[in-house]
C-alpha cells in the first residue's frame, strides 16, 4: 500500500541537502508553506537556491531562511515588499544573488520544466533590461525572448487537503504557484491542513494529481496566515 503521508515535518524534509534548488509556493503569505520552511531551517541545509514569487516578509517563511543565512540565490519576480527587510539587508550586503524574472516568465519556465520542454519563446520582457543578453527572435512579426526551464530538486507546497496517493486540492488564492511547482521539482513535499481518505476528493476537482507529489505532512497550524 502506498501512503505518501509522513508523520513529522522532520521526515518531510529529511532528504534536503546543501546546495539544493527549492521551489516554494505562495504569493506573499497566501499559500506559503511556513511550517515546511521552518523544517528546512531546523534541518540545517544551506547554500540553497530558492525559486518563489517573493523573497519573504516579516520574520517567518522565506524571510526566516534568509535571516538564518541559508540562501545563496533567490529567483523571484517581486522581492520588494512592505516588510522584506531581511531580503533587503542581505541583498544590499551582497550576501544574496537575485535573479529577477517577470512573473509570467517565472510561471512559464516552471511549467516548461514540469512538462519536459527545452525552452520557450516568450514575448514578455522583450526590449527590457530583464532580457538583456538573451536570444531573441522575430516570429510572425512579433519579438520573443528565449527562456529556459527552471528545474528544482524540491518543491515545498501548501495545499488545503490531500490523500495518501498525493492528490491535492487548494484553498482560494493560496493555490497560486503550488500546482505548477509540484509538477516541476524532482521531489514535491506538501503541507496540508487535512489528510483525507482515498476517494474523499472529487476526481473531477483534484487540482494536483498524486503523480506529482512525493510526501505529504499534516500541518496542524496550516491556518490562514495572520494579518501582515
Amino acid at each position: 500500500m502506498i501512503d505518501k503521508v509522513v508523520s513529522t515535518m522532520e521526515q518531510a524534509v529529511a532528504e534536503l541537502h546543501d546546495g539544493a534548488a527549492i521551489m516554494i509556493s505562495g504569493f506573499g503569505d497566501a499559500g506559503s508553506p511556513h511550517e515546511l520552511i521552518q523544517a528546512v531551517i531546523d534541518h540545517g541545509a544551506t547554500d540553497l537556491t530558492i525559486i518563489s514569487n517573493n523573497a519573504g516578509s516579516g520574520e517567518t517563511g522565506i524571510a526566516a531562511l534568509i535571516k538564518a543565512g541559508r540562501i545563496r540565490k533567490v529567483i523571484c519576480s517581486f522581492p520588494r515588499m512592505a516588510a522584506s527587510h531581511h531580503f533587503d539587508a542581505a541583498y544590499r550586503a551582497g550576501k544574496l544573488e537575485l535573479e529577477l524574472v517577470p512573473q509570467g516568465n517565472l510561471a512559464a519556465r516552471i511549467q516548461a520544466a514540469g512538462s519536459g520542454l527545452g525552452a520557450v519563446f516568450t514575448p514578455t520582457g522583450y526590449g527590457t533590461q530583464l532580457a538583456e543578453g538573451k536570444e531573441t527572435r522575430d516570429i510572425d512579426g512579433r519579438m520573443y525572448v528565449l527562456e529556459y526551464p527552471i528545474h528544482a530538486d524540491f518543491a515545498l507546497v501548501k495545499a488545503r487537503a490531500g490523500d495518501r496517493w498525493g492528490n491535492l486540492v487548494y484553498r482560494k488564492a493560496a493555490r497560486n504557484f503550488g500546482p505548477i511547482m509540484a509538477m516541476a521539482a524532482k521531489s514535491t513535499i506538501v503541507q496540508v491542513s487535512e489528510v483525507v481518505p482515498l476517494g474523499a476528493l472529487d476526481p473531477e476537482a483534484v487540482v494536483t494529481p498524486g503523480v506529482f507529489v512525493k510526501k505529504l505532512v499534516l500541518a496542524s497550524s496550516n491556518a490562514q496566515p495572520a494579518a501582515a
Partner: protein
Amino acid sequence: MNMQRLDRNAIARRVARDIPEGAYVNLGIGLPTLVANYLPADRDIFLQSENGLLGMGPAPDEGNIDWDLINAGKQPVTLLTGGCYFHHGDSFTMMRGGHIDICVMGAFQVSVNGDLANWHTGAPDAIPAVGGAMDLAVGARQVFVMMDLQTKAGECKLVRACTYPLTGLACVSRIYSDVGVFSVGPDGARVIEMVEGHSLDDLRAITGLELEIGSER
C-alpha cells in the same frame, strides 16, 4: 501652472467610464485598484487578479478578511458569485495569451509611441521588483496607464522617449491623467479629452510636445 487637476479618485472614475460591460480587466497594484470602486454594479465586468482570481469582488468587511483571498497588491478581497480560482500557469495564460481586454497600470513614464516604464526607477540602490507588469504590457489587448501627468518635482511623465528602464515596447494605448486623456501609439500622442479649464496650449506647455486633438483610433 495652476490649473484644475483631477484627484486620483476622479481619474479612477474616468477610467471606469471607458470599461465596457463584459470586459475582462486586470487592475495593477496601487492607484489602478481604485478603478474597481467606480465600476457600476449593474454592469458585468470581470476583474482578473494575477494571483489566480477571476471575478474578483470588493474588499471584505473587517470581520470577513481571509488572507488566502487577496489581490495582486496582497490586500484582502472577495470573490463574486460566478468567480473562480486557478493556478499561476493558467493566470498568466490569460494575461500573456491576449485574453485580458484591458489592463490598467501606473507608470513612471510613457512615451508618445506607447513604450511603458513602470517597474524600476533605475536608481542603483533600488531593490528591483517586476511582478506581472511585463506580462500585462505585452499580453493585454489594451494597456491603459493611469497617472498624474507630472511628477511631484514637475517633470512630465509623457515623454518623447523613456529614460527609465522599460517594462514593454509600444504597448500603451491610452493615458488617463489628472489633466486629460491621451492616446499614444504609432501615430504619436494625441489629446483625447482635457480636464475642464485646460487648453491645448496648457498641455503643450506641460509636455513640451506638439500635441494635437485626436479622435479615437
